[in-house]
């Protein structure tokens, strides 16, 4: 049943920067009055700046497909979703969406701080397209999903930001549209809640609903989606199986690692801690090869000493499959309080990885919330070596190797 659920044909979106079309009426008047003067001076009309947030984007998504859109900040992912959910109109092109759409661009937009959790749940539910009786029916489920039972009749302005987001997501998660469009909203709240959200998303995806999932969390895209599009500067630059597209995205981003981490702007988290340096090397010196132990050095700084801090570094392969997680939240990890700035060092066991590219992703959490996060914080190449005295398999054959022994047994061994 290959029925097209979403079709986009040559969608482009242009924003004009700094022009006086909108804004105050007087600005518009001044602009009009000033025109003859400017043309006398010979500069003509001022140079206008246009921003093509999307350029000629076309695709088709079939019913029941779960499709990811990935790309860096500013690639046009969010604009695309806003167009498809009719929040904004494309400058050019056309689109067709068949089915009841639920779109989550930003969780909790529509919440009013003075209303209680209960009142907001109903209001937000209706804004997202749920019927009052649907909200009624699922209300208990929503409240327990959000873990706000005790505060449901408290105005949400008294909620912690975590509770606020949990309630908002809980309402959204119980939306049952035919086509679900999700923008980066899985990443709210703390660890356990995120896990819950992801599980919920997976459930929606396996329910046979059409899902458009926008993210730069490539791990989530490759686990949730079968197909993906890669956007860059407003264009689709790659399309295909999610795994392949994610791989291309990672490869394209390897250029980013040449920017020192301290200068990287595309960070996430609340910024209370900053990772200012990240180096990975062979603990024994020289280039990294399959039998190397890795030595990781991480510099960080913050305004005040860190309490309950957790540093994590993920080592992933070129297709963004996580391989190892180096986590300070282990026995003998970090003390409860660490100084405001410092350097962490970590030495691993031999990695036993097959030759190929690996990437690093770093995240710092403080008291369960993300303080700083950088993707593609570094890459390294694993070179082949005579680790187990044989031909080193290719990355496509195996990701890791292990020591093993073979023996030749007797065919009719009586035992």
């Amino acid at each position: 049943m290959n029925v097209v659920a979403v079709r986009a044909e040559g969608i482009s979106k242009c924003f004009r920067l700094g022009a006086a079309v909108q804004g105050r009426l007087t600005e518009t008047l001044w602009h009009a009055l000033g025109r003859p003067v400017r043309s006398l001076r010979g500069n003509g009309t001022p140079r206008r700046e246009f921003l093509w947030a999307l350029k000629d984007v076309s695709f088709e998504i079939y019913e029941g497909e779960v499709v990811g859109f990935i790309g860096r900040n500013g690639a046009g992912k969010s604009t695309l979703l806003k167009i498809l959910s009719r929040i904004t109109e494309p400058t050019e092109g056309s689109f067709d969406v068949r089915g009841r759409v639920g779109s989550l661009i930003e969780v909790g937009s529509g919440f009013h701080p003075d209303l209680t959790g209960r009142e907001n749940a109903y209001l937000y539910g209706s804004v997202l397209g749920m019927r009052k009786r649907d909200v009624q029916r699922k209300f208990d489920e929503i409240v327990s999903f959000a873990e706000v039972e005790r505060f449901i009749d408290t105005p949400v302005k008294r909620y912690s930001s975590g509770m606020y987001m949990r309630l908002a997501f809980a309402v959204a998660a119980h939306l049952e549209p035919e086509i679900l469009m999700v923008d980066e909203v899985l990443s709210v709240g703390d660890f356990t809640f995120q896990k819950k959200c992801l599980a919920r998303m997976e459930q929606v995806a396996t329910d046979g609903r059409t899902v458009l999932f926008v993210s730069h969390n490539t791990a989530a895209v490759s686990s949730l989606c079968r197909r993906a599009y890669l956007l860059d500067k407003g264009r689709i630059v790659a399309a295909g199986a999610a795994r392949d597209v994610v791989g291309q995205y990672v490869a394209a981003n390897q250029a980013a690692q040449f920017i020192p981490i301290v200068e990287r702007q595309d960070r996430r988290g609340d910024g209370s801690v900053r990772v200012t340096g990240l180096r990975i090397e062979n603990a024994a010196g020289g280039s990294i090869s399959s039998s190397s132990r890795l030595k990781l050095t991480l510099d960080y700084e913050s305004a005040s000493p860190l309490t309950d801090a957790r540093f994590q570094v993920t080592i992933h392969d070129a297709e963004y499959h996580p391989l190892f997680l180096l986590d300070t939240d282990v026995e003998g990890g970090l003390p409860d309080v660490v100084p405001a700035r410092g350097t962490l060092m970590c030495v691993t066991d031999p990695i036993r990885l097959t030759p190929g590219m690996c990437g690093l992703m770093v995240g710092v959490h403080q008291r369960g919330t993300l303080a700083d996060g950088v993707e593609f914080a570094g890459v390294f190449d694993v070179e082949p070596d005579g680790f187990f005295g044989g031909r080193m398999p290719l990355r496509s054959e195996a990701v890791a190797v292990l020591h093993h022994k073979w023996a030749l047994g007797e065919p009719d061994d009586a035992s």
Partner: protein
Amino acid sequence: MTPLSSATDNSLAQIVRGDDRQPPSSTRLHGRKGWIASYQEVWEYREVLYFLVLRNLKVRYRQTILGAAWAVLQPLALMVLFVLVVEKLLAVRSEGVPYPLFAFAALVPWGLFSQSLTLGAPSVVQDMNLVSKVYVPRLLIPLAAVGVLLVDFLITLAILFGMMALYSTAPDLAALVWIPSLTLLALVTSVAVGVWLSALMVMYRDVRAVAPFLAQFLLFLTPVAYSSNLVPERWRVIYGLNPMASVVEGFRSALLGTSPPAGRMLAASAVVAILLFGAALTYFRRVDRIFADVI
């Protein structure tokens, strides 16, 4: 669990500098709906309207001491002011009706209109999130702002009936026809003004300053504190171009038996109200499509 997990994508868009091409004007859209379809959609989203009205009602008087009494206190205070200034100082005649009643009967529909101006205008801008982060028919936002005022209107109308009982005044049966139809005229005018100004304010924030001023200005151009009898006969039609002039005069006449608005004045008002309504919806519809980009 990956180390990166939080925050939203704050799109720092790529900037294309020095590109002088105008954005092309040819737009082909399947997503765009026709007049009828878009009002059908407003109907489909009626529950949102209900919850928005409910929200506006709750939010307006939450964390206030006097609560909903404010709905009544405002016109009552104006009435007292008019009694002191207009009746006592200026000695304006009130056609034999007790002046407080004369003024309050006018303040009931006037309140609906003037509040539509001051509360309707900023409604869309205040609900920015409902415009730029989620899709609901935007028309619901100013409608919800005016919808709340209808509740205020009913409360003040009840107070008016109470006052009439105190003064032992009873309307005749014709009021049963007049009051609903004049209320409809007031509502059409109020919705028109609220919808129009709310869209205009998305484009031009000047409206924020203009709306309360306009409300004050029109208060003097409407026979709230005085009778339209004071307006020379030949100016009545022009005077009736303000639909609220007929509404206010009609309200008073239907309930208190003062002289009714001239037929021509009433006709002018109805025509203007309908034109205003059509123009407001047309303008709103036109700028609705760029709301999210401009707001």
